[in-house]
């Protein structure tokens, strides 16, 4: 079997360029990167397409692929295969149990315009910051409407979690609230929970309904 080295290089660079273009065009980059680093996807798409164009214009010597370079190109294909293999992968209960450090993102979002806009991040910030709680009208008894993933279930409660990303998935931190409810959602299921915040910053759910995964499953910095 004869493998042309130039063709192999072009194929790998082209595949990566295609992944960046697809991530850019579909907005799926939020699956991997936070809001602060989103710019890398269009930047990467443009520079990779440029590199591909330059490589295409290069000389055609038709040299054979050497084993060392072949293994290197193979390694570069592994993340591409991974992205294709689990296109709808998301962080869930397993990641929450392994990635939880008990620390909190250094972020202070703008107060939500209405109670409907309150996210799990707002609740967690309000829990730590009395001034934020005051200006955003989030306090014990406030009715909230939260969407998250179920990461733990107990006898009469479950944990509702959203992950917060700063740079990329590597630094994702789970933000979790305990929901008191007799509903029995499954672990790793997306649910919408409506009810008042309790004295201990939990949530007493009136309604728990299953929902589809949101288009932006992770919370990230947003100027709102």
């Amino acid at each position, binding site marked *: *079997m*004869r*493998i042309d*080295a130039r063709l192999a290089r072009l194929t790998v*660079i082209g595949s*990566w360029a295609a992944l960046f273009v697809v*991530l850019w065009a579909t907005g799926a980059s939020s699956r*991997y*990167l*936070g809001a*602060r*680093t989103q710019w*890398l996807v269009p*930047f*990467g798409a443009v*520079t*990779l397409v440029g*590199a591909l164009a*330059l*490589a295409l*214009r290069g*000389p055609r*010597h038709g*040299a054979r*692929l050497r084993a*060392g*370079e*072949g*293994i*290197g190109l*193979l*390694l*570069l294909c*592994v*993340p591409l*295969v*991974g992205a294709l*293999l*689990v296109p709808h*992968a998301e*962080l*869930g209960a*397993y*990641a929450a*149990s*392994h990635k*939880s*450090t*008990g*620390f*909190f993102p*250094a*972020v202070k979002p703008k107060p939500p315009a209405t109670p409907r806009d309150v996210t799990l991040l707002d609740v967690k910030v309000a829990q730590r910051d009395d001034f934020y709680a005051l200006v955003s009208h989030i306090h014990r008894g406030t009715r909230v409407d939260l969407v998250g993933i179920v990461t733990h279930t107990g006898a009469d409660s479950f944990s509702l979690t959203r992950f917060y990303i700063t*740079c*990329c*998935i*590597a*630094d994702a931190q789970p933000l979790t609230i305990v929901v008191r409810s007799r509903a029995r959602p499954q672990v*790793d299921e997306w649910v919408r929970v409506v009810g008042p915040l309790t004295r201990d910053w939990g949530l007493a759910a009136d309604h728990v309904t299953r929902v589809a995964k949101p288009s932006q499953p992770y919370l990230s*910095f947003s100027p709102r």
Partner: protein
Amino acid sequence: MAAATQSLRTRTVTEDAVGIAFGLLALGAVALHAFHLDESPALQTFMLVMVSIVVEALPFILVGALVSAALAVFVSERGFARVARLPLAVQLPCAALGSFAFPVCDCGTVPVARRLLARGVRPQAALTFMLAAPVVNPLVLASTFVAYGGGRRGLEIAGARSGIALVAAIAIGVLVGGTVSLRGSGGASHDHADTFAGHLTGDFLSMGRFIVLGAALAALLQTVVPQSALARVAGTPVVAELALVAVAFALSLCSQANAFVAASLGAFGLGPQLAFLVYGPLADAKLTVLYSGTFRRLFALRVIAVAAPVAVVGSMLAARVIG
């Protein structure tokens, strides 16, 4: 005649091996899907973390490869020879100053340093540039300033971070530079290395594969090792600094945005946060693999051996000064 036959046989075997390896990769993917192993939460977490680190790092690798290719093609041998003749006492500060003007992440400076070394620049200066630029460039300083709320506090943290990083970079350059040597072309064929495109693709692909390996290592650490133990050591001096050095190693974050992560580690004091900010861009998991693939003689271990104590001690001292 016999030698030619042997050569042909070797080539065919290696090409076959590459083809078989690609086939096995595809087969493995199909098997994972067929047996629903791709639905395993651990595998999904591993894949997500690995792909996200590679997606974040590759554009910077490409920028580094572009600069490296430009140095190779557009700067004459005579120009490099002139620089190489300068005494170390001149090259070192120039490298440190130059690093302030190269706004690229940690992965991007490795191909540039490799090119500088290959063209005769003193190893001490090339390493100082490679290690300092990812921390002290204007974009990183600005992101650090913003992450810590701006104002005087932001300036203090950004200044402390760049100061400790410069000291660490120069220390590594001086202590490790004397022993550094480059590996070969790294497997990437430079058949067309006389062209800009040849240099660009060669550097990009040979660095990229080490980024994949490093990202896989970081993803494995994050998937297997629970991070909950961290909170218990947050208040213990030295241990807290070392803990965040270990976290910086495992997370392998981009230096342009890791300040926002550091600022969220509020349970730790300023010293550990600074250690996290300084150490990560010097020698995290993905860089360790990248260094090992680029330089010989246990270079990565030597960098870690100097970077970790300098980052820890420097951060503790800086934290005492700025409180």
